[in-house]
């Protein structure tokens, strides 16, 4: 653990580019035996690329990998396993319809005369699980166990007898507090056995509970590494979020503090959903912009989806214009004048086979119902207007939207939401993958709509964006709303302080 011991894994000057994008830029990373090393960073920081290089899934362009002081080349995940490096990925890579024993030994079954020796396999699975203090029926189907147990089984699978490095990629993402505690007991036990553990998580409380050392990446660069005791949460969060684009902050003062005296058009009272977001209160006035700030995985998207009706709340209620909404679904929401732009435009936003025009008019058409189709002229006019207003780069409205660039696709999603004439607009990461110029277009347009009375809820990982556009900011940490700030209090520092949980 001390600096004098040889690191188990030492990465030096690791650089990796994907096409024109530099994912890692001369990153150093040291992992000592018997330590839990937390690797932190927002989306696109380079965490997963670094892990992939360490586990041989991706080859580095530059840089050196040393194991116990000796330079090695790790060519494949199989190679990494030979070197004693095992990974447990975030999505549990197991087969629910196979038995626990098969899952634990899959691909590495003990063989006898070329055939799988199932008795030995069961025995091996049992001993692996016993190492984690887990005594379960190895013949039962994996799917019959809870997600938490499945997570432990995944760890058991990764733990070979000679495993010396274990990478845990967001192991607690789908676990509740008790399950997390069990997992951490096991992690401490493995640590005591001298195994070096890389821990990736978005939950800062958990990082402080388990990690001995923290390394922070941002935009592919190493921005800080220190023992946990020397990394107070304030410093950690500011490292993760960075501090750039001071110019945008000045934009903020121009908008000043606006007060909204009239009754809110949307009120969430104690709205919550188990394992997703703790019950929260939120109110939204006409013309107001509320920012949802927080780290990745803090519950921004979950909050937005609960309000739009994508997921159903377990507790609390939602009021629109003072009337409690009983049945809440995306379809109802659009009829009631709420529009939503999802974070993942390819998976949830766009109809890639359909044309730009069809994509843009879709929400308005569903609002009108299938019987009253927009006329050809209306469709043409709406598409032309939106292409012009948002400066969507497309030769014509007949182009399949899948052929546009990412930024333009994002604009099409926004255009569709705007065309449905919403009173409330919920945006989840509205400027992801948009270039600077388009970013300004979008922010300006949103501002103008708000002066016309549109209420806006923006979830964003970009603090500057939140600071620039919001009248009020709701801050989230670990799937909980931890507070709200208004007007002049809205600064980067204040938000970072709240995210970090500092007094």
């Amino acid at each position, binding site marked *: 653990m001390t600096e004098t011991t040889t690191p188990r894994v030492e990465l030096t000057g690791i650089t990796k580019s994907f096409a024109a994008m530099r994912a890692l830029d001369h990153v150093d990373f040291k992992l000592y035996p018997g330590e839990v090393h937390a690797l932190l960073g927002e989306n696109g920081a380079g965490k997963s690329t670094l892990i992939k290089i360490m586990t041989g899934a991706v080859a580095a362009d530059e840089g050196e990998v040393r194991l116990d002081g000796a330079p090695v080349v790790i060519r494949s995940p199989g190679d990494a396993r030979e070197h004693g490096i095992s990974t447990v990925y975030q999505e549990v890579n197991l087969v629910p319809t196979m038995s626990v024993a098969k899952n634990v030994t899959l691909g590495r079954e003990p063989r006898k005369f070329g055939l799988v020796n199932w008795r030995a396999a069961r025995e091996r699975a049992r001993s692996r699980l016993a190492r984690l203090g887990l005594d379960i029926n190895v013949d039962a189907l994996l799917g019959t166990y809870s997600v938490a147990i499945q997570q432990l089984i995944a760890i058991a699978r990764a733990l070979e007898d000679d495993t010396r490095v274990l990478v845990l990629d967001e192991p607690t993402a789908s676990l509740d507090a008790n399950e997390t505690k069990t997992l951490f007991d096991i992690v401490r036990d493995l640590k005591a056995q001298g195994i070096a553990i890389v821990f990736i998580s978005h939950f800062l409380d958990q990082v402080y509970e388990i990690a001995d050392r923290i390394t922070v990446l941002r935009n592919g660069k190493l921005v800080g590494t220190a023992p946990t005791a020397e990394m107070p949460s304030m410093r950690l969060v500011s490292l993760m979020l960075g501090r750039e684009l001071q110019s945008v902050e000045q934009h903020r003062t121009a908008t000043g503090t606006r007060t909204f005296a009239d009754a809110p058009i949307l009120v969430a009272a104690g709205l919550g959903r188990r394992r997703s977001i703790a019950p929260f209160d939120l109110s939204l006035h006409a013309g107001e912009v509320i920012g949802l700030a927080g780290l990745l995985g803090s519950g921004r998207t979950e909050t937005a989806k609960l309000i*739009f009706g*994508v997921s159903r709340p377990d507790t609390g209620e939602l009021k629109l214009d003072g009337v409690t909404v009983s049945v809440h679904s*995306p*379809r109802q*929401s*659009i*009829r009631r004048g709420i529009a*939503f732009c*999802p974070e993942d435009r390819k*998976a*949830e*936003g*766009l*109809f*890639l*086979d*359909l*044309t730009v025009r*069809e994509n843009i008019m*879709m*929400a308005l*058409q*569903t*609002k*009108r*119902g*299938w*019987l*009253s*189709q*927009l006329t050809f002229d209306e469709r043409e006019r709406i598409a032309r207007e939106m292409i012009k207003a948002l400066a969507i780069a497309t030769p*014509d409205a*007949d182009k399949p939207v899948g052929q546009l660039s990412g930024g333009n696709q994002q604009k099409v999603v926004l255009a*569709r939401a705007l065309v449905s004439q919403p009173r409330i607009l919920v945006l989840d990461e509205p400027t992801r993958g948009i270039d600077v110029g388009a970013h300004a277009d979008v922010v300006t347009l949103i501002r103008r709509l708000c002066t016309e009375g549109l209420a806006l809820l923006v979830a964003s990982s970009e603090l500057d964006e939140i600071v620039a556009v919001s009248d009020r900011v709701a801050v989230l940490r670990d799937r909980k709303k931890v507070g709200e700030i208004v007007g002049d209090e809205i600064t980067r520092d204040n938000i970072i302080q709240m995210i970090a949980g500092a007094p």
Partner: protein
Amino acid sequence: MTQESTTTTAAVAGPSMGQRLRWLVAQRALWPFVALALILAINGIVSPGFFNVRIVEGRLFGNVIDILYRGMPTAMVALGMAIVIGTRGIDLSVGAIIAICGAMIAWRIQAGDPHWVVLLIALATGLLCGLWNGFLVAILGIQPIIATLILMTSGRGIGLMINLIYGGTNPSFESPFLQWLSVGRIGLVPTRIVMGVIVFLALWTFIRRTALGLFLEAVGSNPAAADLTGINSRIVKYAAYLLCALLAAWAGVIVTADTHTSDPVSQGLFVELDAILAVVIGGGSLAGGRIYLAMTVVGVLVIQALTTTILTSGLPPEYNLVVKACVVLAVLLLQSENARAAIWIFFARGRSAK
């Protein structure tokens, strides 16, 4: 429907002949037409008088009419299949629906119902089958290929059981009304062709003059996005299976009235495969997202022209399926961008070698 063919014609005012040709070659919609034209041209050369159309007994006669006439039941089924495939689904039970409807027709005529009521019963039977398929796919969320396989395998048995209701030894019937719908004529034109045109126009109006077609394609293109955009994807999917079954029932009426007997074992056998093939030849993707009604009909005509050609050319009918497979493969290869690029490179290399 085939929007690409209408919108891009205006855009090619300036480009050179070569560019125009390249653009034309890249149009997927071109190749089914080329295939159809080739098949017909070969026929014209092999058997002179192939394109002759005569009037016999007050009705148009000739090979071209014959292709349309015989292709009509498959065309009806294929139109429904195009819609279901557009929603990223598939309906394997259409052949079985034809068999069930045939059995219903024979039974109700034996029972003495008025023949126009029998027609309605047959169509209603189709809708009932659609309700079942839709329930499995849209409500229970069973994968379409499995869900419709249930009716596909059980349907012909159900047809035989219906035959047994009245003894079932001789499920044939006489019905001037139903036979007029199938083998009769309106003026010079066979009734089933007139009805086919009417069905096509009605279907086109139903899905293109309303937003239903857009919603069907949206559900097929990206189900998650469709839900978030407020489309009720359950009802939309349901509509697709109902339409498909209804069209299959109409095909069942044509087929059954043609032979004026119910034969659940062989009526409409393998029609689902021809229908799927027609949709794919017409440019539809099994991954869903697009519905090309007119091109699907062209796909049916390619298949039917081929079948007719083999029968009239004197080739043993055993060759039918193999030749059909080869032509279909050729059309699909030409539609595939990868294959076209490979062919292009192959020829370019051959030229430079000389």
